């Protein structure tokens, strides 16, 4: 039986004005119909760092993440403010296509299109009006290198993306996202469908990518959060309970619910 924890007792860090932030949410609420899935999330994400969102299944971390680039449009009702470059991108007048070009997303299950490896990457570039062949080729190579996939696929760019292994597919999805040169990369449990070796490769890729991008990653795997992230937010039953630097989170959790979760008492 799950212990009852008070949702009043939270420990959420804020950042002073000197820290440059990639994104910030204020009072973010998400409703699936009558189901209040996310309560009052106030989180700020520093630039060029990896922030991990951890928590048990159903804690609302994926729901929260999907709100950040408006992927919940048409699925759930999201209220509150999402600040990005001092614009509230949760306003209905905001161009969602533009947002998703700047805030990319990689999903839990590797989901390359049933097209060739090259086509997977140029698809979105073309959709954005990039037509120059040389430039497209350049972007393909650059993004595949960025996702640490280039050496493995450079001779078979015309092969179907579905012929790649799961780990390669997921890195292709990352390449596909960074080909758009976004600011922020959202990853929704990117390694949960991968074997340990592929997971290590993806993690190495992320650590490399944080030099250029701000990364927010949802993960089930606490070791993964500890390995890759600088900041760590713990979600519980639709509430953000604790948000601290990752070192603090794992060595010195501030509140009982986090302590119990880190210790493995539930989740």
């Amino acid at each position, binding site marked *: 039986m799950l212990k009852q924890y008070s949702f009043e007792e939270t420990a959420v860090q804020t950042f002073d004005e000197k820290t440059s932030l990639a994104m910030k949410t204020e009072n973010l609420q998400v409703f699936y119909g009558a189901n209040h899935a996310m309560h009052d999330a106030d989180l700020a994400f520093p630039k060029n760092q990896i922030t991990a969102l951890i928590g048990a299944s159903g804690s609302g971390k994926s729901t929260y993440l999907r709100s950040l680039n408006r*992927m919940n449009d048409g699925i759930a009702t999201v209220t509150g403010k999402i600040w990005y470059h001092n614009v509230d991108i949760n306003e209905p007048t905001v161009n969602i*296509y533009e947002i998703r070009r700047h805030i990319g997303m990689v999903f839990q299950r590797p989901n390359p299109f049933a097209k060739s490896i090259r086509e997977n990457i140029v698809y979105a570039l073309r959709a954005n009006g990039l037509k120059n062949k040389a430039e497209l080729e350049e972007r393909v190579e650059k993004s595949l290198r960025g996702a640490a996939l280039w050496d493995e696929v450079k001779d078979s760019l015309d092969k179907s993306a579905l*012929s790649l292994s799961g780990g390669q597919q997921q890195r292709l999805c990352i390449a596909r*996202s960074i080909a758009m040169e976004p600011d922020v990369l959202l990853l929704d449990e990117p390694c949960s469908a991968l074997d340990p070796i592929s997971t290590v490769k993806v993690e190495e890729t992320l650590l490399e990518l944080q030099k250029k991008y701000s990364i927010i990653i949802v993960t089930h795997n606490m070791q993964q959060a500890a390995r890759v992230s600088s900041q760590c937010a713990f979600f519980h039953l639709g509430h953000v309970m604790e948000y601290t630097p990752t070192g603090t989170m794992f060595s010195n959790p501030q509140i009982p619910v986090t302590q119990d979760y880190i210790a493995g008492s539930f989740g």
Partner: protein
Amino acid sequence: MEQTNFQLKKQKSQSNDWSARLHHATRATREDWMGKGISYLCIGVIILVVASMLWFITSKGVATFTQNHVSLTKFLFGTNWAPDQGHIGALPMIVGSFAVTFAAAIVATPFAVGTAIFMTEISPNKGRKLLQPVIELLVGIPSVVYGFIGLAVVVPFMRHVVGGSGFGIISATFVLFVMVLPTITSMTVDSLRAVPRHFKEASLALGATRWQTVSRVILRSATPGILTAVIFGMARAFGEALAVQMVIGNAAIMPKNLISPASTLTSQLTTGIGDTIDGTLPNNALWSLALILLLMSLFFNALVRVIAKRGQLKHER
């Protein structure tokens, strides 16, 4: 104490001969045999029926060439159809059948794909509640009703608009268009629904618009399914007899244009089959037409299989 003893005894008596115990048939194994038997019986009956139909039509159909010694080229490419006088050039009907089939498919496909996109991507709710029943209803209407409406509405309309009798390929195309539309639409809907949701999500997450997502990702990966739908629609149009017969005019002559009376393989069959005597050339010639129909439907089936295989292969390489 007594009970324990009893259980021990029972176990002992059973465990004496493990080989017999593990080999003997129980109710479960007998049910298995029975189920297998019934399935094989059903399959056997179906195979028997199909095989005898194929054999029957083929043997009757080739009699024109073996018994009446009509040359195959004359039959396939001759344009004079007068079986009573020994002329059986089937080209007018072959051309008529292909003309109405392709014309109906070409007209119906854009409407069908558009409707299917509306039903799956643009307004799934209205699609399910409103359009789905309409389409199911359209499939269920007997072909004689379509033919009757064609005769009462389309033919007079064509007569009024373009002149002539109003009977002809264009009227048949119109009737067939309405008849194959629900077939193509509902199968296209199925193939669009079968496109994995994560393709759509991935595309949207990359900043692609809804239109880009539909046209470049969803339609692309549903293409084999849509082609299959079109071929099924064509097979239906090719095989449709009654409705076509009622509006095409049934003149076994080469169609010179789209608005003069023509005929198809099926319309010629239904028109002529009652007036011929078994075993004579006019009767055998009709069986030959039926053989062409059969071969065409086999061809359509083979095509569907090839497309399905291609669609799979593309992504396994």
